[in-house]
């Protein structure tokens, strides 16, 4: 039986780096937009303001939209991934044995990772465990064996019969 670890420190570090780069990009774009608008305002006179107003507003809106996009599409995702990976790498692990089957129940946790439910059939009761959807491809669709969990998230598994 071969144990498969779903979480690695390298992935956590990559997520941290993505988060840092996204933050830098957000600050750079935001600062550039603000400076550009401020410089344009310096050229505002009663004659030029009618032309400058839509330009300044347009630059501000566009730079702000880029920052917003980076914050939720890149920074937010990277932060959620890093936080999750740190939790999984440092948390106390509990080993559970039984039959496991991935379900179609996939949910997105607000400010967190996307979670797929995994059904555990064991005595005395069945239960649903959580699986980070990004790791779903690493887990067989159905198997018997043991899994290590942290806060009900599957962190590693060992399938019966693996060579």
């Amino acid at each position, binding site marked *: 039986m071969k144990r498969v670890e779903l979480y690695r420190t390298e992935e956590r570090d990559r997520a941290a780096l993505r988060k840092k780069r996204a933050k830098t990009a957000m600050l750079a774009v935001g600062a550039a937009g603000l400076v550009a608008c401020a410089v344009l*305002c310096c050229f505002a006179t009663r004659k030029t*303001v009618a032309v400058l107003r839509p330009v300044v507003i347009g630059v501000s809106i566009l730079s702000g939209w880029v920052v917003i*996009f980076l914050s939720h599409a890149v920074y937010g995702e990277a932060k959620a991934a890093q936080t999750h990976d740190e939790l999984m790498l440092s948390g106390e692990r509990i080993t559970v044995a039984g039959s496991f089957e991935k379900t179609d129940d996939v949910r997105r946790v607000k400010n967190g990772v996307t979670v797929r439910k995994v059904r555990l059939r064991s005595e005395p009761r069945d239960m649903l465990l959580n699986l980070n959807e990004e790791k779903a491809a690493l887990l067989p669709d159905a198997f018997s064996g043991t899994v290590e969990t942290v806060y009900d998230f599957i962190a590693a598994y060992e399938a019966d019969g693996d060579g």
Partner: protein
Amino acid sequence: MVKKILRNAHRYVFWAVLSAILWTWILMLCTEVHPRRKVVLYADLEGLDKAAMSETLSEDLPAGIRCVEVERFTDQIFSPAAVQSGDLFLIPEHNAEAYFDSFAPIERDAFSGCLLYERDGEAYGVCVYDPAKGIAIAGRFIDWEALLGQERCWLFFGVNSGHLDSGDGAAIAVAKRLTELD
């Protein structure tokens, strides 16, 4: 990706509205001229080309004045604040009495040769349109006949203006320039 953007659509809309309001206000502050450095003319005339008139009057400014603003007003926005702050007023004759308390007397000599609005022995306004006498100043900015027909129109001076003879006289200078426009 589209779903992510749609989930955060409220942030995009909020930022767009906030940007428009904020930068409009900032640009207004950047271009606003202090009342001491401008002459404001309020015109009770719809159809006035206020931008062109303002630009023309601003071509030859009295000392210390940066611009001449021309604004239209209706009875709804002819608020006490506007009455108190305006330097010059273009008023059709039928409204002259209603707003008379807002106008200051002027020196007759400043507008010798002009038809003056007189009351109690004092001159308060200058006639800028009188079809019977062939008076029609600034015709390229105002279609007098279409707007007023046979009714006269007068140029009055704000009672609280800081640009009359008791001040720097800028309103008088601008009024003289206005009466010379064709």
